[in-house]
């Protein structure tokens, strides 16, 4: 069986079609997604909780208008409370929440014009600055928004200082306070992953899927056409060893494949993987097993290798788009998200993303692994039933 596994690996490596589906195709997509700067084109969702509702706070809000006009930000409805807003960011419904405290814009006047403005009046302490709550967006985008808010705050303070100096000449205000913390930031939940990083892990799963399904379907139907399966049957080799060797070789290749795709994403395009890649192994192996079984099933239905290849594409291409490789399944209408999430590719992608981007461990993604294991069992059952040797 070892000899057969090694022979299988040799054949796969020498087969250009295998290399295409296993590596070239996913890598082309990695390069495409790596080169496009998606942060430049997608818009982030922001909500503003304006606790002050003063001309100063309106000015700050207005300072984000430029980013809105460039399509980088999209204003959402104001949440009812800070707690609710934070919740929305944590769940991914919002990317940013800007909370402007009630005291904003009044502090600069606290030298006496408005004595009721707070406990900090007249002292060195400032009241709480505006807080930007960050969600799951990339670091680049985060810096852009933080910068815009900071500029807005500075502009507001400058305006206030100007009006105050016109009234009572108090320039020492500016000099005494270098304002290091004019914008506070707070991260909620998910560490920031870029769209590219999301897609990269989707592509790992997709590569394993297309290769597993299509190349095994083509190989087996080719073997059948050439009577190689029959030829195996007339040797004393137990036929389960033949299939075990096929599966082993394919799993080993899937692991190499995942490693290469990840490596290209990380080292060539600077993707950040937070989790332990070894925790991805169960998802890679279970997912690969499901797709191999699908390949065996297809090979039983297809009469020629070309038909097997076509049917493999019919199965894998829609799954690639539906199950969340590129787009979130939650963007589908009606009940379709549930259907898409039930496909074997979806839990595999979810598990890989949770591990790779959120640093989850293999056992934390057990629901996805269990679902995949169910798929393995179901497809194996069908494969054994429909398989034919000649």
């Amino acid at each position, binding site marked *: 069986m070892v000899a057969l596994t090694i022979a299988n690996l040799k054949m796969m490596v020498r087969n250009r079609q295998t290399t295409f589906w296993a590596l070239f195709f996913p890598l082309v997509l990695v390069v495409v997604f790596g080169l496009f700067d998606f942060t430049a084109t997608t818009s982030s969702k922001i909500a503003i909780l304006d606790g002050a509702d003063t001309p100063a706070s309106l000015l700050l809000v207005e300072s984000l208008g430029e980013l809105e006009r460039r399509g980088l930000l999209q204003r959402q409805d104001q949440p009812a409370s800070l707690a609710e807003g934070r919740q929305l960011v944590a769940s991914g419904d919002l990317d940013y929440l800007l909370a402007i405290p009630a005291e904003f814009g009044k502090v600069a006047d606290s030298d006496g014009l408005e004595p009721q403005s707070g406990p900090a009046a007249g002292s060195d302490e400032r009241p709480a600055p505006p807080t930007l709550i960050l969600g799951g967006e990339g670091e680049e985008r985060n810096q852009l928004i933080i910068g815009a808010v900071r500029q807005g705050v500075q502009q507001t303070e400058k305006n206030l200082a100007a009006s105050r100096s016109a009234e009572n000449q108090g320039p020492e205000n500016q000099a005494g306070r270098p304002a290091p913390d004019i914008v506070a930031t707070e991260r909620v939940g998910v560490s920031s992953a870029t769209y590219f990083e999301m897609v990269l892990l989707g592509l790992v799963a997709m590569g394993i899927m297309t290769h597993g399904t299509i190349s095994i379907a083509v190989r087996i139907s*080719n073997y059948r056409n*050439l009577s190689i399966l029959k030829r195996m049957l007339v040797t004393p080799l137990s036929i389960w060893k033949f299939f075990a060797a096929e599966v082993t070789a394919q799993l080993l290749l899937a692991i190499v494949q995942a490693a290469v795709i990840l490596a290209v994403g990380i080292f060539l395009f600077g993707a950040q993987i937070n989790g332990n890649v070894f925790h991805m192994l169960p998802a890679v192996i279970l997912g690969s097993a499901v797709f191999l079984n699908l390949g065996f099933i297809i090979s039983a239905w297809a009469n020629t290798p070309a038909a097997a290849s076509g049917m493999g594409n019919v199965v894998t291409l829609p799954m690639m788009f539906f199950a969340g490789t590129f787009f979130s399944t939650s963007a589908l209408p009606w009940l379709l998200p549930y259907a898409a999430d039930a496909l074997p590719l979806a839990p595999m992608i979810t598990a890989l993303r949770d591990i790779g981007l959120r640093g989850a461990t293999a056992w934390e993604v057990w629901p996805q692994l269990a679902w995949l294991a169910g798929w393995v069992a179901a497809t194996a059952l069908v494969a054994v039933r429909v398989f034919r040797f000649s």
Partner: protein
Amino acid sequence: MSEAIRVEGLVKRYGNFAAVDGVSFDVKEGEIFGILGPNGAGKTTTLEIIEGLQSPDQGQVAVLGKDIQRDANWIKARIGVQLQSSAYFGFLTLHEILTLLGSFYPKRVPPNELLEMVGLADRAKSRVNQLSIGQSQRFTVAASLVNSPDLVILDEPTTGLDPQARHNLWELIQAIHARNVTVVLTTHYMEEAELLCQRLAIMDRGRIVAIDSPGELISRIETNYTIKLESTQPLDDNQWNALQGSGNLDRTEYYPHDQSRSDSSYLLRLDKNPEALNQAINCIVGSGISLKHLEIRPATLEDVFLELTGNELRD
């Protein structure tokens, strides 16, 4: 033990159609045994049952003295099989394929020795798709020898080969036989069966119609000589009747490879009457047929087949 294969009352049905319909025969150790018959006669099905690829509906098969169903793996380790139209892994070299196949067997022959034997030693690093048809056919024979088998089963080893390649393969089969290996082969080439086989089973429509040595089979039939003649114009009724009187005249050509057939080609099959040849020649000369071509040859297996089955042997 003197029988390499013993088949008794073998039946294999596909639905209502009996592909093998009560076949019995023995193959003796150390002989080259041929199964001759047209396509669809049941040759391949019979072999596949012997090889363990299909199970019989009725009947017993013993290979090398063991029952094929009880001792399948024991048998598989000791026989070599070349399947009809079987190819091999496309992305391995010949040497690698033979090594891989050998790894399935307890006893194995070094790949280089096998390649040497079939004249492919210099192609060890080639792949199957880089071989000519004749070479790849020789390679599949080499592959059937990886386990140094006691019995080799070859299913139509020469089908589709040009004459030169066919002769090479005949030599190869005789070389295998010279090593005391029992050989069973199927063919639908008469001259091949006549040349190679010590004994021959003629199969038609799932049954065996005769088993004997080629010489015995030929001497058993009614026809002794066949005269093939071609006239410049079709025979008239008188000529036809005259010839018919001295033998069995037929207009139809039953030599599928013969390109020279025309409307004025005839076959005259003579019976065993010692005078028949004389009579026929006198008749041809006397009836004033203007001859374009005349050929007299002794009966062959082809005549045997025709007489036994009433069928032409088609490609």
